[in-house]
């Protein structure tokens, strides 16, 4: 690990000022940053620790939204009765992420900024094979090699990695927003738009960009609208615990007086470099009974733009099934 200089910020202004130097990285929990430093994914000259800034409250804003500080740990968010009541999918996603000891350190702010788990990307420098994220222009070894866990939406010839965050999927389905601050002041980013697929990134002119947080910006908190919907998160993986998702799904459901779906939202995880919302299905679900028979064809019909690679076509029906299970769980039924 390269040496760096360290400072503890006394204020958010300290952080923003420090980040004006592009060789500066933010340290929150450190569970991701330390591995970047070891692998050479990041090589900052300076690290600014935000441990003294608070920013870890979990509370309401008086009724219309749940507000969660960016430094709240995954265990704190996952263990919060308030989050469980108003944002069950987020609670569940946090507790299904990583391990108990990592969740004591990892923060909700840092979690959504984690980088792909593609093994060709996560290797120690110098990278021995092509990877456009590590060596721009070198190519993508995964496309020619193993790619069974890679994207089925939004990938390009340059990269097919997926965003692995569980909480990000829940935040996208819950219509959460991130409050961020930077040199230009404060702004709010909808979490369903926070991450970029490779195709979207290519359109911005920065093909390896993974999210809309600008350099020099810091996430301060998340705001989750409280609408009385119920939500659930389903994570499908190769071992029962402490493993990244093959696919995942967050679903929210509000049932009408007739017991049928009045509103629903779905975000798929680990199928793209961003949580993948199914807007068409969300509209088509309204008025349906919350049964597997009713939901499955509607979710299925929302996936025609899936573009699986040679090894990962299985992810499309798997994601569809996970989405149906998440909706059924959110509706209070058996899944």
């Amino acid at each position, binding site marked *: 690990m390269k040496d760096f200089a*360290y400072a503890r910020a006394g204020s958010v202004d300290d952080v923003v000022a*420090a980040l004006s130097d592009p060789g500066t990285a933010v*340290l929150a929990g450190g*569970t991701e940053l330390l591995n970047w430093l070891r692998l050479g994914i990041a090589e900052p000259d300076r690290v600014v620790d935000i441990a003294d800034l608070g920013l870890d409250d979990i509370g309401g804003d008086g009724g219309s939204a749940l507000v969660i500080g960016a430094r709240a740990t995954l265990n704190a968010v996952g263990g919060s009765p308030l989050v469980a009541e108003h944002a069950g999918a987020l609670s569940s996603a946090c507790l299904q992420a990583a*391990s*108990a000891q990592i969740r004591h350190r990892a923060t909700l702010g840092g979690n959504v900024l984690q980088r792909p788990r593609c093994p060709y990307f996560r290797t120690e420098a110098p990278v021995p094979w092509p990877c456009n994220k590590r060596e721009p222009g070198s190519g993508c070894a995964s496309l020619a090699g193993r790619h069974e866990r890679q994207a089925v939406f939004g990938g390009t010839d340059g990269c097919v990695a997926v965003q692995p965050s569980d909480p990000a999927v829940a935040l996208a389905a819950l219509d959460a927003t991130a409050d961020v601050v930077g040199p230009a002041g404060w702004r709010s980013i909808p979490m369903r738009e926070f991450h970029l697929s490779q195709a979207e990134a290519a359109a911005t002119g920065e093909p390896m960009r993974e999210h809309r947080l600008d350099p020099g910006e810091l996430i301060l908190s998340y705001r989750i609208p409280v609408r009385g919907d119920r939500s659930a998160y389903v994570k499908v993986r190769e071992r029962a615990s402490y493993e990244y998702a093959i696919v995942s799904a967050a679903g929210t459901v509000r049932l009408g007086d007739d017991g049928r779906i009045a509103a629903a939202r779905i975000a798929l995880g680990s199928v793209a470099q961003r949580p993948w919302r199914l807007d068409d299905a969300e509209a088509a679900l309204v008025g349906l009974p919350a049964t597997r028979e009713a939901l499955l064809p509607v979710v299925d019909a929302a996936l025609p733009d899936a573009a699986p690679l040679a090894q990962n076509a299985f992810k499309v029906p798997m994601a569809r099934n996970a989405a149906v299970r998440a909706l059924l769980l959110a509706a209070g039924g058996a899944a």
Partner: protein
Amino acid sequence: MEFRTQVTVVPRVNGDPVRTTVSPRTTLLDWLREHRGLTGIKKGCNEGACGACTVLVDGLRMNGCLTLVAQCDGREITTVEGLSPPDGSLHPVQRAFAEHDAFQCGYCTPGQLLSAVGCIAEGHAGDEGTVREWMSGNICRCSAYPQITAAVLAAGEGERR
């Protein structure tokens, strides 16, 4: 705010305050082993995947490899060396591991013990499924999981009694 290339902090290690000046990149894992001579903590994967470096920081289990010493100013660090009382007797969790034969080679055991102490303190030791879920951050390549689970359940039961 000043960026420094050497950081002085005073964590408490197993109850004793220790003043130390380190390069900021020094992990808690490397510092405990190399600077403090506390070799109970193990460097298994050095990336947060195995849990062999689990210690308690202010009573919460954390991976020493994912923690910088610079982040530990004023924190209480508990390693396996500090788990048993000074009279040399075993901590109840250690006794439960011995009674249930919850290890083979022993490499992962210090991390398992501290994780178990944390797991029980968090209230996640009530049944087998919960223990397995909340102990999943500690890998045992000898695969002593059934015995480890039994030991955690027994130690948790003993605490509640």
